[in-house]
């Protein structure tokens, strides 16, 4: 049996109210809000968040392949998956690839992972998107940012992949050439009637026929379609009850690109019962459809953070701040020198520290410390150390400052001194917080972020955030 062994999801902390867009631009606004990756997040950092949860829930599964899917890769050339793997402390000896080019990339990655699992390799699928759209456009309001991750294998499967079907067709719907920030879209009536509804229908028809499952037997149907009217058409054709349709999270998160089908599936899985059949389908340049059956193992499965909890954990962002974060609204640079590009050899030497947040523990006196130290800060022993991961350790704020002089897309920069449970201290930035409310004793957890970009190099490292 091949299928999903564990999953993780990520919805960034910040929300942009659609009414705020409407008010600022003087245009009609949709209902609800969309999730917004913070100024220090991107598809890779969000994928890391979801991946860490999926791996936590996977127990001791040995990952042999890593697939990162997105339409917004931080690097056009350079393996983005390698960054995800380094932050998740995956082993050296794995296969890894980036899948991109279409919002279908997420389900494509899941299907490829299933193939790998059938060949005996447990695969990790990390899917994330940071949807960028031009102001006043429909997708600016309908889009969202988020991530999902799945461990796919043949042991400890909680949702078996029973069948899949794919169709691929060339037509002009959504496109963006290299260097363009915003995608273009063809007129909706054409894509709805000629592509979305018929192609999605075809893929779903094929997968259900293959598995000999009737639409009425489906516990939940996840449909990721750019146009909600296509969902209506497909649902009517399949004679689905409204309760069978999964919440599209349109009012709370928005359409999260390649990650959306995965995010909706993660949301459905947290409420699924053994025996449930779940259909997942996405349409873009064709369609993929996937039929899952929830197994008995799901009854005892423990998920670290549910999608629902992540949706509830939130804070608003002003539309103007969002425009600055995305550098859609250029701002006057502060009178400080530009940050330096991080250097290749030092990053190479310190990979487990920089990306994995692994410190050291002195084996002579037991003191944990970070960054890793060769000479113990407590007892002075030299080279008596073992690796000591800090990424999953909780910490408390010992003291803090709000730095209004430091260069940041989101001033003030909150710098905190944090003390870890079990020992170890670090000074770093605090993100996703209300600066004026930071206090000594606050509980925080680690999060992987993009600190800044300099000389075309994204500088990834860790920050703390209030416990979510």
């Amino acid at each position: 049996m091949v299928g999903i062994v564990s999953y993780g999801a990520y919805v960034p902390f910040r929300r942009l109210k659609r009414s705020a867009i409407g008010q600022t631009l003087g245009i009609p606004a949709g209902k609800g809000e969309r999730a917004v990756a913070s100024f220090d997040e991107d598809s890779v950092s969000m994928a890391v968040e979801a991946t860490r949860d999926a791996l936590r829930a996977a127990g001791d599964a040995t990952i042999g392949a890593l697939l990162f899917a997105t339409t917004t890769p931080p690097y056009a050339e350079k393996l983005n998956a390698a960054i995800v793997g380094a932050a998740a402390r995956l082993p050296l000896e794995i296969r890894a690839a980036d899948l991109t080019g279409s919002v279908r990339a997420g389900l494509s990655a899941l299907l490829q992972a299933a193939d790998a699992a059938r060949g005996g390799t447990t695969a990790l699928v990390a899917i994330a998107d940071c949807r960028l759209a031009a102001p006043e456009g429909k997708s600016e309001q309908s889009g969202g940012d988020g991530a999902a991750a799945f461990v796919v294998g043949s042991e400890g499967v909680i949702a078996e992949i029973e069948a899949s079907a794919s169709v691929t067709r060339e037509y002009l719907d959504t496109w963006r050439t290299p260097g363009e920030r915003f995608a273009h879209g063809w007129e909706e009536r054409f894509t709805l009637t000629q592509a979305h509804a018929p192609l999605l229908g075809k893929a779903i028809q094929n997968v259900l026929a293959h598995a000999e499952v009737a639409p009425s037997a489906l516990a939940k149907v996840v449909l990721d379609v750019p146009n909600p009217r296509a969902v209506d058409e497909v649902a009517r054709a399949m004679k689905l009850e409204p309760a069978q349709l999964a919440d599209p999270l349109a009012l709370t998160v928005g359409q999260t690109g390649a990650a959306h089908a995965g995010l909706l599936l993660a949301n459905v899985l947290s409420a699924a019962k053994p025996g449930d059949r779940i259909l997942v389908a996405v349409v873009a340049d064709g369609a993929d459809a996937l039929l899952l059956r929830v197994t008995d193992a799901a009854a005892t499965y423990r998920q670290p953070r549910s999608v629902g909890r992540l949706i509830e954990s939130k804070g608003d962002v002003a539309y103007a701040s969002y425009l600055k974060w995305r550098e859609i609204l250029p701002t006057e640079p502060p009178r400080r020198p530009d940050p330096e590009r991080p250097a290749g050899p030092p990053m190479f030497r310190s990979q487990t520290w920089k990306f994995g947040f692994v410190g050291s523990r002195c084996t002579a006196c037991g003191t944990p410390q970070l960054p890793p130290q060769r000479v113990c800060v407590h007892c002075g022993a030299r080279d008596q150390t073992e690796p000591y991961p800090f990424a999953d350790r909780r910490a408390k704020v010992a003291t803090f400052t709000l730095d209004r002089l430091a260069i940041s897309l989101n001033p003030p920069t909150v710098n905190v001194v944090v003390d870890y449970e079990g020992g170890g201290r670090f000074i770093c930035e605090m993100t996703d917080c209300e600066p004026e409310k930071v206090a000594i004793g606050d509980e925080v957890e680690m999060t992987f972020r993009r600190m800044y970009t300099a000389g075309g190099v994204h500088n990834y490292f860790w920050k703390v955030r209030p416990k979510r």
Partner: protein
Amino acid sequence: MASNGIKDRVAIVGMGCTQFGEHWDKGPDDLLIDAAYQAYESAGIDRKDVDAYWLGTMGQLSGLTLSIPLKIPYKPVTHVENFCATGSEALRQACYAVASGAYDIAMAIGVEKLKDSGFSGLVVSDPPNDGTLGNMTAPASFSLLAPAYFKKYGLDPDKGKDVLSRIAWKNHRNGAKNPKAQFRKEVPLEQIKASPKVADPLGIMDCSGVSDGSAAAIVVRAEDAHKFTRDPIFIKALSFVAGPGEGPLAQDYDFTTFREVVASAQDAYHQAGVTDPRTQISMAEVHDCFTPTELVLYEDLGFSARGTAWKDVLDGFFDLEGSLPVNPDGGLKSFGHPIGASGLRMMYEMWLQLRGEAGPRQIKDPTLGLTHNLGGMPGRCVSFVSIVGR
């Protein structure tokens, strides 16, 4: 093994100090020439009489930075750098060189030209690195002291802010009496307290002045001192400490002290035979880079018992008319902080005060003066303490 010091073996017989501030019309070469020639003239010597030089300045690569503008004729010039304590480090090296007998006359000189960068605040660049070093600015790293100190000693933040503001108020009040200071006017307490935030709770008025300037000292053996001047000042102690950087690494550091300062102060007091600094030290120039630094220094230097410096501040203990005047020349706050020059500028005030030349801010009959110079950040710094006397 011990730190023995060179008490009364070396004297300063001449000093120079430029005006600190915005020298748009002068480059670093001009500032060096001005300070050096003031020092030569003060000691009554000629440029060719100096046997060796120590130059303190940031980010330069050699002694040529000094020897070329001064046209020093084939003499040793050593460039030294030790963060914001660079000027003090230059003086320390010159004193030891003279004490060793290697040279008869040495000059320590420091310079910085900060206003040419076009940036706000101090800018320091790191060597190529892995991008994990963080980007905390200097005011932010020192502001970490404030909430920690307030919490530990039960000051509510508003009261704490009053204490910090009063330190800046005092230093401006002193600087107003100093013709060479960058900022020569008193600033009302309310204006200091309400100044725009830089790194909460610090406002712009809690920060030292970004400044251009240079200062220099001529050092000779104590027995030769009276050949140069009637009123030399004598080195009683020189202590320098670099810490292991425990603050950002170990949980037992609580951001209400500089262990490096405690260690260097103890060493200096031992060298000089000082047992009760609160009563024995007549005056001090301390490294008030930011107001909470000065607050914590009072306790680290033993001027106030732990947890009580804030009361001494409010009582005026460290005012010019108080029992232990601190930063009588205006300090980094009001005199300005051209990094490499600051340690020598502190000594310049000791030179004036001990010789009775400090004019309207003259302290009555000082006998022992202390300078304290610090570089780095709380928990990870270098600290210098000197004690000088007549």
